[in-house]
């Protein structure tokens, strides 16, 4: 009998089905991996298994009995534990204190004070049982990433977990640290603990899994048995075997002037290690990479929001030694940040105040705002971008996502840039706005501007780009001309480069 059986599980948000009639079985002692692109429905599934979301329809069976979870506590009580990507530890507590964070502390006689000795003994027994050696007396902030992950798993084992869900557990681990985790997973498995393993790294998935389920756009594409498990097979299912025809764009002109160039770029924080690319006049350069590949970080470094350790950035053949956002805007580089609400807009301020923020000094006479010219400029841009709003004095928080993004683009256009760096510019906008944004960027490119288009949507990248640069593990690993490319080609490169990069 399966430990957990999922039948016809569906989750609907508004009209969107985040998860559509999923059937899945997880047996005792099985390592079952979930793979799929961002937005495939992995997180939604986890959230329903851990009692965060109630399902819209469908049933869960636990050891043959139907169960429903009202809250995360219910799911925990029957023995399902999730280890999240962002660790749920209190960093200035010791390992021991973190172990007991959601377990009752043993009390001394008469219920006065905490029995630290008993706590420590129980924790050591647990460590011995699982063959772990985490230093429990130091604060979590002084532990290595792998120790933290193991500590979280150990905490889950405090309450006899039957099913552990590991969400990208190796995302911040080195190869060596990952090995520690893998051997621990083997041990859990031998004890009959079932594991749901989520990772972008296919090598790991193939190595660890008994079975792998591929999700795409909320649908279950296939559950692959161990004997059938190959990288090619997985990628084929992940891309749905579809071939995407990219809309024909005017042929890129060769030997155009280089606008922006990155040479052996490395950031201080190590999020980007070796980035090389050129952006030419009149082209849209697509940038693709899996989560954690350093795409966003690289754009921030070029724009001046992240410190650069080594390497050079050239703008029109001139070295930019210490870029700042201010100098970028002045030279003609704008960033459309990934996170609209936090990085791009001041939500409580008006449309006008947001749009003119980068160019305030141009709208002044001796430091005094020239409100008439500001108003007419903003009204012109509102008309051009067809922003739906009451008027220029409406706070942007009252606009729809698509209209907010139009304000962001109008704001970018204000400084009359030569280079647009767009990080996920069509995230959470409606289809119409998405088309408007694509058209706008194509127009800008045809006027001789350069556009960098970062997206985690492979199909979109193929739809809009002239050339494509692929990022993996903080490095640029490939440059492709977008000519009869299909998604498989790109995913192949991403996953094949991953392993090498980790070792190097």
């Amino acid at each position, binding site marked *: 009998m399966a430990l957990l059986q999922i039948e016809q599980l569906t989750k609907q948000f508004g009209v969107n089905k985040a998860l559509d009639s999923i059937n899945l079985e997880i047996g005792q002692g099985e390592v079952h991996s979930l793979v799929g692109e961002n937005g495939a429905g992995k997180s939604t599934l986890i959230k329903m298994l851990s009692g965060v979301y109630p399902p819209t329809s469908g049933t869960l069976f636990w050891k043959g009995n139907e169960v429903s979870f009202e809250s995360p506590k219910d799911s925990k009580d029957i023995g399902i534990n999730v280890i999240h990507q962002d660790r749920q530890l209190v960093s200035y507590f010791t390992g021991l204190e973190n172990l007991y964070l959601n377990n009752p502390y043993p009390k001394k006689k008469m219920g006065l004070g905490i029995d630290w000795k008993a706590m420590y003994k129980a924790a050591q027994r647990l460590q011995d049982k699982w063959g772990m050696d985490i230093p429990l007396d130091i604060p979590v902030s002084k532990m290595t990433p792998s120790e933290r992950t193991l500590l979280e798993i150990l905490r889950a084992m405090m309450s006899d977990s039957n099913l552990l869900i590991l969400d990208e557990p190796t995302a911040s681990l080195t190869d060596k640290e990952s090995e520690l985790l893998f051997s621990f997973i083997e041990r859990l498995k031998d004890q009959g603990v079932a594991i749901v393993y989520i990772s972008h790294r296919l090598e790991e998935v193939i190595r660890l899994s008994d079975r792998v389920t591929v999700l795409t756009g909320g649908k279950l594409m296939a559950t692959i048995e161990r004997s059938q498990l190959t990288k090619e097979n997985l990628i084929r299912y992940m891309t749905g075997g579809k071939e995407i025809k990219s809309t024909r764009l005017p042929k890129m002109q060769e030997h155009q002037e280089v606008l922006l160039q990155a040479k052996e770029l490395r950031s201080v924080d190590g999020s980007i290690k070796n980035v090389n690319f050129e952006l030419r006049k009149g082209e849209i350069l697509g940038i693709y990479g899996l989560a954690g590949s350093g795409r966003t970080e690289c754009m921030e470094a070029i724009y001046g929001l992240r410190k650069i350790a080594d390497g050079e950035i050239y703008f029109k053949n001139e070295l930019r030694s210490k870029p*700042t956002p*201010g100098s970028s805007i002045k030279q003609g580089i704008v960033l459309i*940040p990934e996170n609209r609400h*936090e*990085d791009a807009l*001041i*939500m409580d301020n008006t449309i006008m105040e947001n749009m003119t*923020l980068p160019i305030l000094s141009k709208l002044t006479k001796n430091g005094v705002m020239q409100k008439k010219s500001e108003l007419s400029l903003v009204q012109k841009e509102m008309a051009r971008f067809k922003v739906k709003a009451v*008027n220029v004095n409406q706070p942007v928080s009252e606009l729809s996502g698509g209209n907010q993004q139009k304000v962001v683009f109008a704001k970018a256009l204000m400084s009359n840039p030569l280079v647009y760096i767009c990080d996920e510019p069509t995230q959470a906008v409606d289809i119409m706005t998405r088309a408007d944004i694509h058209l706008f960027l194509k127009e800008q490119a045809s006027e001789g501007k350069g556009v960098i288009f970062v997206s985690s949507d492979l199909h979109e990248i193929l739809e809009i780009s002239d050339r494509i640069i692929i990022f993996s593990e903080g490095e640029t690993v490939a440059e492709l001309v977008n000519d009869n490319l299909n998604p498989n080609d790109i995913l192949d490169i991403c996953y094949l480069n991953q392993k090498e990069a980790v070792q190097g």
Partner: protein
Amino acid sequence: MNANVETYKKTINFNKNMISSYGTIFAGIAIILIFSLLSPGSFATLDNLINITRQISFLVIIAIGATLVMSVKEFDLSIGAMASLGGVVAAKSAASGLPLFLCILIPVIAGFLIGLINGAIITRFKVLSFVTTLAMGTIIGGFTFWFTGGATIFENIPASFKFIGQTNLGGIPLLSVIMFLIVISFWYVMSQTVLGRRFYAIGGNERASQVSGINIGKYKNIAFALSGMLAALTGALLASRLGSAHPTGGDGFFLNAYAAVFLGMTVVRSGVSNVIGTLFGAAIIGIMANGLTILEIPTFMQNVITGIIIIAALIIQKLGRDS
């Protein structure tokens, strides 16, 4: 289009933010009416009104500095100590025979520079302004004590030093005139200039402002420097009014200044510190003090009542916003 703007503003004000926008103003009017009824002969007179403008001039000036710092979402808790220092420096300068304009200018420059140090520490090391300026206040207090030996400075102060504090221009105190000039200047700066727009942008979303190319550190430094400058000026004006300076003479302004700013945030543009609102806030606090004194209510009771009014205003604003 303009008609549209007006309609939009009106709907917002009258429906959603009715209470939060005008609650404080209604409360202010109610307070004035109550005092007028209770002591018509002494409260509701032109003389007393002019008197109140002079009484609140110190609080208004120091609170405008706090308004600037709060507009970039920081705190300057050193303003009380800075006012004490300003007073002492001004009085010492006067006692040593320096001309009047230098007696005011020296503390103002000192306040500006110490404010810059506040700003530099906070922006350079990304530490909390709350704690940094609290510590800076302690340091300033220590220096002031050392500087004065803990004693009030009143000897050898020439009569000319008291000119600013005690002159009337056609019945209107010079201090009130200075206060109104400062209110108008900073209202203009905050609402009509790039500086003000950038302050409010930083306060609204620091990260988005940085992405938009604004040098966050620079503008925060300016806010702290102006706050220090206005606090020291307040102290100097107070010394000129009294003809003496006590080493802790300005400390008491600190809490009332923030009370005025918070009250002010409930007026005009709700939730954002602003100069006109601060003027209102300081006026309410000043009118309370004046009216309660006329009614011979003891100081400790005045504190209780003023505190209750501030808390009530904040709750009313919050209720108005959530509705």
